[in-house]
């Protein structure tokens, strides 16, 4: 069964500056939605409003036409990876997997560098591995939708391919909304691409559209 997550009527402003205005976004299971935009364009705010951790009284968040606000309280529905480390650094890798109810073995198979480090606290890992643990847990966590805010930032290229593989594996049963500045990775993995600009959301087919909207430099 396909599921559809929708958000509409998002309006956000700070003082006179309008950040988001009448935004509508939808994502269905089995698809990846890429969200691009310049710094301060409201990408993270939109994801947090969708997740339900940023107050926005006017907007509506629906799962299969049923209101789920705040979405994070809906059972086994949505996972959100913020752009910063958020899993308590005092937890061991093994404990983090246990709390999320996921087996650690497939993760260690993917990342042999972390073999024998299951009992290490997250704070003892390098920044990149800490982030990979969080990414894996959010991507694989039981649920229907995953929101990823800057998943590729500070990750080395070989591990970016690994993240893309995890997303592809889960895509069969989940929907993803991904925001990052590394646009070529977003373009390569997305089924639909959107650009936030001047408070509005614009559908883009490819990098030519991104150039047209002024997100990429038009060279030649």
């Amino acid at each position, binding site marked *: 069964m396909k599921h559809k997550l929708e958000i509409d009527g998002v309006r956000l402003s700070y003082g006179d500056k309008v950040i988001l205005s009448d935004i509508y976004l939808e994502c269905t299971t089995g698809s990846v939605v890429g969200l691009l935009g310049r710094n301060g364009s409201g990408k993270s705010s939109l994801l947090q409003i969708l997740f*339900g*951790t940023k107050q926005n009284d006017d907007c509506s968040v629906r799962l299969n036409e049923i209101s789920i606000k705040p979405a994070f*309280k*809906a059972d086994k529905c949505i996972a*959100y990876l*913020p752009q910063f480390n958020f899993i*308590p650094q005092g937890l061991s890798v093994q404990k983090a997997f246990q*709390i999320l109810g996921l087996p650690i073995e497939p993760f260690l198979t993917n990342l042999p560098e972390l073999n024998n480090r299951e009992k290490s606290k997250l704070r003892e890992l390098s920044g990149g591995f800490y982030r990979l643990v969080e990414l894996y847990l959010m991507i694989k966590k039981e649920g229907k939708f995953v929101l990823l805010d800057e998943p590729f930032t500070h990750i080395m290229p070989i591990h970016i391919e690994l993240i893309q593989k995890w997303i592809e594996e889960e895509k069969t049963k989940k929907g993803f909304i991904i925001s990052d500045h590394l646009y070529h990775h977003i373009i390569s993995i997305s089924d639909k691409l959107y650009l936030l600009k001047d408070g509005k959301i614009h559908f883009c087919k490819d990098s030519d559209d991104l150039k047209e909207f002024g997100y990429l430099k038009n060279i030649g």
Partner: protein
Amino acid sequence: MKKSALILRFYGNFVVASNLITYSCWKLIDYWKMTTIIPVLFLFKIATSFIIFLWVNERKQKEYFFYYNQGISKMKLWSNSLSLDIFLFCVMLYFTILSL
């Protein structure tokens, strides 16, 4: 993991500071052998709980997302952990008064 276990884990962030305050209140009552100071100590406990809230809230802003991802709101985390803390304080008061 059950939500109650996660709330206890969150309570673990300030359990030492909070129980030190409870312990010092118990020592004060025990030292003076006076029940009349209980209302003052109760207010002291409430005030220090508020300071602990401000301190933890500032330091753990990012960790809230870990709990949100388990379906637990900030309100639920604090209301449950502070209720437990005040309950433990009241239990201490009760047994201290009995022993006087």
